[in-house]
């Protein structure tokens, strides 16, 4: 096909692109993936029976604030890295803020607990599986984001993959809160974050392969 024919073929179909189309596309990917993750939690793990009571507790909102702020920050990172020439990304250091806040809460928690109980506080009942459940729940969300990227144009594929992994992991952690009854900050800081980090690392590994266009 010569170039003039190509142009004619391409411009035969010029759908309107709404403002904020990129943000909407990323939101659709995240929401679709998160719904799938929620179904998985409900069917396989079960929603915690005391959810309505838990939702009035500090521990629940501490976990949600942590995972949601990471999730929102990571979604912003995805939206930046989904464009060619994403520019200066120094603002993403703000993603460290929720981690530091939770660390502060965790230190306060340890200070109020006798050292003999620290181990139980840190390991909870589910430290061995928590990171892997978060990672597993991140899979459908990552897949949703891959769909989003199909019409977008990342040029730093490893960074974009890492941001997608981070977003998938943080949204997965948010959804996992619907099942998980662990209530200590130090538990969340270690094991939730480990799951999120695993998702980020796998995203960075896969990025150059799966985000090519």
């Amino acid at each position: 096909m010569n170039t003039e024919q190509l142009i004619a073929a391409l411009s035969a179909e010029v759908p309107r692109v709404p403002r904020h189309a990129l943000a909407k596309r990323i939101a659709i990917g995240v929401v679709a993936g998160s719904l799938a993750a929620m179904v998985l939690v409900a069917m396989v793990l079960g929603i915690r029976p005391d959810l309505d009571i838990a939702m009035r507790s500090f521990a629940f909102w501490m976990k949600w604030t942590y995972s949601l702020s990471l999730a929102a920050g990571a979604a912003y990172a995805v939206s930046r890295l989904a464009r060619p020439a994403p520019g200066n990304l120094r603002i993403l250091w703000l993603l460290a803020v929720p981690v530091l806040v939770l660390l502060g809460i965790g230190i306060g928690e340890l200070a109020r607990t006798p050292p003999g109980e620290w181990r139980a506080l840190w390991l909870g009942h589910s430290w061995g599986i928590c990171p892997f459940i978060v990672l597993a729940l991140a899979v459908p969300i990552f897949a949703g984001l891959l769909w989003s990227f199909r019409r977008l144009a990342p040029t730093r594929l490893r960074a974009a993959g890492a941001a997608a992994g981070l977003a998938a992991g943080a949204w997965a952690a948010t959804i996992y809160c619907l099942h998980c009854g662990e209530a200590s900050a130090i538990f969340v800081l270690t094991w939730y974050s480990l799951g999120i980090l695993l998702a980020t690392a796998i995203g960075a590994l896969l990025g150059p392969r799966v985000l090519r266009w």
Partner: protein
Amino acid sequence: MPDGEAELKCLMLAGLDGDATAQAALLRALVPLLRSFYGHRMRGAREDVEDLVQETLIAVHTRRESFDRSRPFTAWLYAVARYRMVDFFRRRRDLVSLETMEMALAESGFLTAESFEEASSARMDVDALLGTLSSKQARAIRDTHVEGKTAAEAAAGAGLSESDVKISVHRGLKALAARIKGSRK
């Protein structure tokens, strides 16, 4: 044929609003720009240039959601064009030689870039790439290939011997070429 930032951006915005005539005019206006962009860089491999021009037009059309209306059009265009070229080299891995690395670096300098936006974003790409090398190699390459100094000038500036600079450049370029080849395996 419109070729300035203001005219091109105007066509792009109209195309985003669903104006097919503007979109066709935009794509047509991009053809000579992209031919010259790739023409310089591919050293006249005419079929490759035309392939790249077409691939870039398709990307510009199908991935236009990734354009931010509040930012310059040409910066976006050349970022897309540069990505298509890097991907092209990746697909033809054997072509990534020291020579192409040298070319890519030389073109990222301010003197040869088409526009300020392009130059500054190319400069950021180069900074990212050079950041993966040792500081000695990075400095040697930046001096000789981006700033255009001679090996002797670079050696004097860095307080090294001239052969030391040459070796650093050679090893650094080899590492960069290997990185581009290897990173997408």
